[in-house]
């Protein structure tokens, strides 16, 4: 079977001693930093990205994927132990996970999260291996108009899935697209919006933006109400779920995995949306919905499985189409580009070892996660006792050095400071930073594909409507936006996110 031999190639690539090592280091570092309150996967990956520049592409991507899973699991640990979700997708885990911790069942909650994540990771990795090749085959036939419309579809979906004001999310996307055009115009070599600053000729670095918006901005936000932070770290004892627990988590894990795998492919809030959706499904079908929020183990198992499945399947559009579906994938694309690989459907045929190596490393990463985290859980819990006022200056130092080392220029550090400021202002104005980063990374690709489409059609903008695939995607995008404007859908959408507050 083709998939089997491909997977074998993947495991051969990812299974070398060195790559296993990078995967382990990635998972470890990701968890270590992800466990720190207030640092989500985006900031963690952005911070550690420069450390992978020196590695060969396969190893770099393997390590980054490891960091991603580690950071995500670390976020859940924080959510369960101290009720401070480091990222939006573990917000929901905090509800019942923290309640379980208060009931003295922190260990079981953590183990449930790990088991659910591992199962979800295994299934969705397999799904990825099966779905990626046919999708890439289709994508290879895509021309500029199809790509342009696909990006329009992706961006509209991210507006629909962002929470908070739709109008402002839309504004953030356009703002991101605009920032993306700063730098040298690919076609005319004109330097645009660079103010004559040579460092801007290559455009604004996406790592700088991500680190500023998600790292520094978040720190400023946390400084707002420092005194509210209570550090209550429960003792972690007795990890293993008992028979009754096992019986209760099987269903939620299965449903969470299915839901997460499906929703993760969608652009925008894949991981987050899937954890919210999985939680509300469990709450709806549960025989004891009143237990939810008070330490129901289903309320940990379902969202954790869903968000890990979603995290995995969000690699599908990235690997097959070269289009990121969330800020983490945008960072992955950036990493690929830095490694000299143009992301897109051609990666699979031209670099099969890289492609399948990443997929195999996902499963290995998930395996390491469970291997590493359950024994080390005491250490993670200890990390949480570090008070924030000791922690954040250190994070600032690492962000500054990380950004500096991108191009060895102080200019990027100044830019990071500006984006930190912007990140804080946007957070205050309840404008989601994720759609902006998505727009930012898609900006240059969109312009390029728009230009090529229009050149091919001799300036006829109807090319997007005449092309059957393109027009289908535009119609879906249009319907999605229309759907959001319907009052009944709006209500459901608001309800889906209401648990967060």
């Amino acid at each position: 079977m083709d998939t089997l031999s491909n997977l074998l190639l993947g495991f051969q690539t990812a299974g070398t001693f060195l790559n296993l090592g990078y995967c382990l280091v990635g998972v470890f570092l990701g968890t270590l930093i992800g466990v720190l309150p207030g640092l989500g996967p985006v900031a963690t990956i952005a911070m550690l990205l420069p450390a992978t520049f020196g590695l060969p592409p396969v190893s770099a991507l393997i390590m980054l994927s490891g960091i991603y899973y580690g950071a995500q699991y670390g976020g859940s640990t924080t959510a369960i132990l101290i009720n401070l979700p480091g990222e939006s997708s573990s917000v929901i885990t905090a509800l019942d996970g923290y309640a379980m911790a208060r009931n003295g069942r922190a260990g079981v909650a953590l183990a449930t999260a790990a088991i659910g994540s591992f199962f979800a990771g295994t299934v969705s990795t397999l799904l990825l291996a099966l779905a990626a090749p046919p999708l890439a085959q289709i994508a290879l036939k895509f021309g500029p108009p199809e790509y342009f419309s696909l990006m329009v579809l992706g961006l509209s979906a991210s507006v629909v899935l962002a929470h908070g004001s739709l109008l402002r999310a839309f504004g953030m996307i356009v703002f991101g697209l605009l920032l993306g055009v700063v730098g040298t115009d690919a076609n005319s070599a004109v330097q645009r919006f660079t103010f004559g600053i040579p460092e801007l000729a290559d455009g604004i670095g996406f790592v700088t933006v991500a680190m500023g918006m998600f790292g520094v901005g978040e720190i400023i936000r946390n400084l707002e109400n420092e005194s509210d932070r209570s550090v209550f770290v429960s003792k972690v004892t007795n990890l293993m779920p008992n028979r009754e627990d096992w019986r209760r988590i099987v269903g939620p894990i299965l449903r969470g995995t299915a839901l997460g795998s499906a929703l993760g492919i969608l652009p925008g809030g894949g991981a987050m949306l899937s954890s919210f959706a999985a939680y509300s499904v469990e709450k709806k079908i549960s025989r004891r919905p009143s237990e939810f929020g008070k330490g129901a183990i289903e309320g940990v198992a379902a969202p954790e499985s869903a968000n890990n499945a979603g995290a995995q399947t969000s690699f599908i559009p990235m690997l097959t189409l070269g289009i990121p579906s969330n800020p983490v994938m945008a960072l992955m694309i950036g990493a690929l580009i830095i490694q000299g690989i143009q992301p897109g459907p051609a990666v699979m045929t031209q670099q099969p070892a890289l492609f399948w190596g990443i997929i195999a490393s996902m499963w290995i990463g998930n395996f390491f996660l469970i291997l590493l985290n359950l024994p080390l859980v005491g250490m993670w819990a200890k990390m949480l006792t570090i008070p924030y006022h000791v922690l954040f200056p250190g994070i600032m130092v690492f962000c500054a050095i990380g950004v500096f080392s991108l191009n060895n220029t102080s200019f990027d550090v100044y830019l990071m400071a500006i984006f930190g400021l912007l990140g804080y202002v946007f957070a205050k104005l309840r404008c989601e930073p994720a759609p902006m980063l998505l727009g930012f990374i898609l900006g240059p690709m969109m312009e390029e594909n728009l230009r090529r489409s229009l050149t091919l059609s001799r300036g006829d903008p109807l090319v997007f409507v005449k092309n059957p695939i393109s027009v289908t995607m535009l119609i879906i995008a249009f319907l999605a936006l229309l759907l959001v404007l319907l009052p009944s859908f709006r209500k459901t959408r608001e309800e889906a996110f209401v648990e967060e507050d």
Partner: protein
Amino acid sequence: MRLSIRNPADFWSGLLFVAVASAFLWIARNYDFGSPLRMGPSFFPVVLSVALAGVGLIALLRSFAVEGDKLGGFTVKGLLLVTLGSLLFGILIERAGIVVAVSAITLVSAYASVKFTWKQGLIMAALLSVFCALVFVYGLGVPMPILGSWFVD
């Protein structure tokens, strides 16, 4: 009925969007717009700026019509010190070297915390600068001087 801002988030983000869009439009007037057939360097940015200005205007109008949440307090101290710390790091890293730069960003940003004490701050600055010098300069080979051009010719 008196006109008043009912949704400050909409109002300020609208204003921000309009301002950014205007700035981009103003700068883009220097670049060639071209035509759909041959998109010039300002084609895409101008289209985007117009869209952003539109979104901003709608948000501005909406802010007077639809009620929204209050913004809540603004931490000027945190904002200024964290930004200042980063800027200092950028200025000092090549001129004074990693030890001074790391100490500066640590102390200045730590000072933003209500729980800041000089003793703890100085210990953190010392530990972090030694750690970073060892790991980043010696370990990872990031080209940052231990002592910068101010101290070494």
